C-alpha cells in the first residue's frame, strides 16, 4: 500500500502531460521533442531526482505554465487582430484617395515593428536586471531567449514577446490615423521604426520593466498611459508638425470637415478593436491559472465591457445634446475612449466605477475632438482625443477610483503619483517624437507636395487606386 503511494509520488505523477509531444507532422514530433530536449524540459528526469513534495510542486508549475502560456498566446492573437481594426477605422474615416496609403502604413508598421522589437525594443522594455541606467534605460539585446528548462517561469518567453510586440504595434499604429493624408510613406516607416524600437520601449521600461515610475507606485494595468497615451501624444506631435490637410481649414480659419469615405469600414474596425481589447486588458493579467487569476481575468473583461458600453452611450448623448443629431462616428470614438480609459484600472475598480470611467472617456472624446478643431490641429481620426486624452484620463482615474496599491496610503497621494507619471510619459512621447517629426521635416521628407496631396497619396505615393473605376481599370469593372 505504502509502496503504491510511493510509486504514486515518484512515478505516478510525473507523466502528467509528459511525452505527448505529437505535432501535425508525426515525424516533427521528434523535432519538437529535441527542442524540448535542448530546453531540458524532460519532467520525468527532473521528477525522478526530486523529492516528493517537489515533484508535485513542479507539476503544478508545469500545469500553470501551460495554461498561462496558451491563454497569453490567444490574448496576443486578439491584440494582433486589433491591427485590422485600426486599419479599418482609419481607412473608413479618411478620404478614398488615401486608402492604399493607410493600409500600407498599417501593414508595414506591424512588420517593421516586429523586427525592431525583436532586435532592440523587447530588451529595452523588459531589462530584467540589465539596466544601462538603472530604472531609466535598459540594455539592448536581440532575439527572444527561449525558456530556461530548469525554471520555465510563469509563461513562455515566446508568448510574452508576441503579446508585448502586439502592444508596441498598437502604440505605433495609433499615430497612423493622426498623420493620415499628407505624410510621406518613407517618413512614416522611419517614424514607425523609431517609435517601436526606442521611444515606446524606453518609457515602457519605466513602468512595466520595473523602472523608476514603477518604483514610484505608478499603476497602469494594461497601458492607458504606457501604450495609448504614448501613441496619442506621438500622433499629436505628428499632426502639429505636419499641419492640417489642404482644405481642412479655410484661410480665414473656418474648419471644414473632410468626411470619411466609408463609415461601414470604420464601424467594422471599432467592433474588431472592441473584440481585440479582450486580449489587451484581460490578457494583461499575464497569469491566468488558478481560480484567483481566472476570476480576475474575467472581471477585467467585465469592467472593460462596461466602460466600452458607457463610453458609447456617453459620447452619443453628448454629441446628440451638442449637435442635435446622434453622430455615429462620435459613438464609435466613444467606445474606444471608454476602452482606453479603463485600460489602466480595469483590475482595480468596481463595476459602477467602470461605468463612470468609461462614460467620462466617451464624453471627453467628443470634447477633445472639438478642442483640436478650435486649435486648428488636424487629426483625421481623432487619435489624440481617443488615445491621448482618454489615456491621460485613464491614468488619473486610476488614482481617483482605483484600489490603493501597496505603499500608497491616501487617495490624494495615489492621484498625485498617477498624474505625475502620466505627465512624464506623455511629455516623453510628445517631445521625442516632436524631435523626430521636426528632423524629418528639416530633411524635407515629411510631407508630400500639395499636388500629390490633392491627387491623393494612393496614386502619388503608391501609383494605385484603392477603388479603381471602370475606365481606369480598362473596362474590367462594370
Amino acid at each position, binding site marked *: 500500500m505504502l509502496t503504491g503511494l510511493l510509486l504514486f509520488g515518484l512515478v505516478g505523477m510525473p507523466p502528467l502531460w509528459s511525452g505527448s509531444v505529437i505535432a501535425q507532422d508525426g515525424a516533427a514530433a521528434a523535432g519538437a521533442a529535441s527542442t524540448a530536449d535542448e530546453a531540458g524540459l524532460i519532467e520525468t528526469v527532473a521528477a525522478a531526482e526530486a523529492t516528493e513534495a517537489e515533484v508535485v510542486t513542479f507539476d503544478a508549475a508545469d500545469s500553470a505554465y501551460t495554461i498561462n502560456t496558451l491563454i497569453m498566446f490567444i490574448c496576443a492573437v486578439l491584440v494582433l487582430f486589433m491591427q485590422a481594426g485600426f486599419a479599418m477605422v482609419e481607412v473608413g474615416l479618411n478620404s478614398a484617395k488615401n486608402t492604399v496609403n493607410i493600409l500600407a502604413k498599417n501593414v508595414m508598421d506591424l512588420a517593421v515593428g516586429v523586427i525592431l522589437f525583436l532586435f532592440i525594443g523587447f530588451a529595452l522594455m523588459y531589462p530584467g536586471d540589465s539596466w544601462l541606467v538603472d530604472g531609466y534605460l535598459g540594455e539592448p539585446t536581440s532575439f527572444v531567449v527561449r525558456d530556461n528548462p530548469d525554471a520555465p517561469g510563469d509563461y513562455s518567453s515566446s508568448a510574452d514577446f508576441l503579446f508585448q510586440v502586439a502592444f508596441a504595434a498598437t502604440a505605433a499604429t495609433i499615430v497612423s490615423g493622426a498623420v493620415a493624408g499628407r505624410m510621406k510613406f518613407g517618413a512614416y516607416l522611419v517614424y514607425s521604426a523609431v517609435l517601436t524600437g526606442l521611444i515606446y520601449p524606453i518609457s515602457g521600461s519605466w513602468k512595466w520593466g520595473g523602472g523608476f515610475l514603477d518604483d514610484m507606485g505608478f499603476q497602469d494595468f494594461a497601458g492607458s498611459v504606457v501604450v495609448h497615451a504614448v501613441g496619442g501624444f506621438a500622433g499629436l506631435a505628428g499632426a502639429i508638425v505636419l499641419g492640417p490637410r489642404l482644405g481642412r481649414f479655410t484661410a480665414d480659419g473656418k*474648419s*471644414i*470637415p473632410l*468626411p*470619411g469615405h466609408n463609415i461601414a469600414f470604420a464601424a467594422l474596425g471599432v467592433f474588431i478593436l472592441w473584440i481585440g481589447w479582450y486580449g489587451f486588458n484581460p490578457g494583461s493579467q499575464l497569469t491566468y491559472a488558478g481560480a484567483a487569476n481566472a476570476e480576475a481575468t474575467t472581471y477585467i473583461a467585465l469592467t472593460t465591457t462596461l466602460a466600452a458600453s458607457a463610453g458609447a452611450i456617453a459620447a452619443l448623448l453628448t*454629441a446628440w445634446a*451638442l*449637435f442635435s*443629431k446622434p*453622430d455615429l*462616428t*462620435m459613438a464609435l*470614438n466613444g467606445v474606444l475612449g471608454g476602452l482606453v480609459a479603463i485600460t489602466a484600472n480595469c483590475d482595480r475598480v468596481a463595476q459602477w466605477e467602470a461605468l463612470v470611467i468609461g462614460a467620462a472617456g466617451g464624453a471627453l472624446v*467628443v470634447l477633445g*475632438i*472639438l478642442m483640436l*478643431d478650435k486649435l486648428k490641429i488636424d487629426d483625421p481620426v*481623432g487619435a489624440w482625443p481617443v488615445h491621448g486624452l482618454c489615456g491621460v484620463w485613464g491614468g488619473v482615474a486610476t488614482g481617483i477610483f482605483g484600489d490603493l496599491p501597496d505603499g500608497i496610503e491616501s487617495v490624494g497621494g495615489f492621484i498625485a503619483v498617477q498624474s505625475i507619471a502620466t505627465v512624464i510619459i506623455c511629455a516623453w512621447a510628445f517631445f521625442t517624437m516632436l524631435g523626430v517629426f521636426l528632423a524629418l521635416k528639416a530633411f524635407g521628407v515629411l510631407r508630400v507636395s500639395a499636388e500629390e496631396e490633392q491627387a491623393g497619396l494612393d496614386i502619388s505615393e503608391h501609383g494605385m487606386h484603392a477603388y479603381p473605376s471602370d475606365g481606369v481599370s480598362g473596362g474590367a469593372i462594370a
Partner: protein
Amino acid sequence: MKLIIAIIQPSKLESVKEALTEVEVFRLTVMDCQGFGRQRGQTGLYRGHEFSVNLLRKVQLQIAVNEEFVKPTVDAIVAGGRSGGEGEIGDGKIFVLPMDDCVRIRTGERGNEAI
C-alpha cells in the same frame, strides 16, 4: 428634336418617371450628379461638427424627344419633380437643347424615327 436635360432631387426619380410614363415618354438616361445652386438647407454632421453641405446629390435625366413631346415632357418633369405643392429650393432645373440628329445603334435608323 430636342435633348431635355433635367436635374432633379434623387428622391423624385420615381415620381418623375411615373409622370413621364403617363405622357408616354418611356426612354431616358439617368446619371448621378451633384448640384450647387441656391439651395443650402442640408446640414451634414461629421465628427460632432456641423457643416453646410456644399454640393448636393442630384439626379440628372437626359431625354431625347421630338418637338411635339417637348412640352408634355417638361410639364411632366415639373409635375413629378416639385416638392409639395409649392416647390422647394433645390427642386432643380430643366434645360432644353436643340438636337440635330439621333441614331439608333441597333438598326442605324436616324432622325425622328430613332428617338
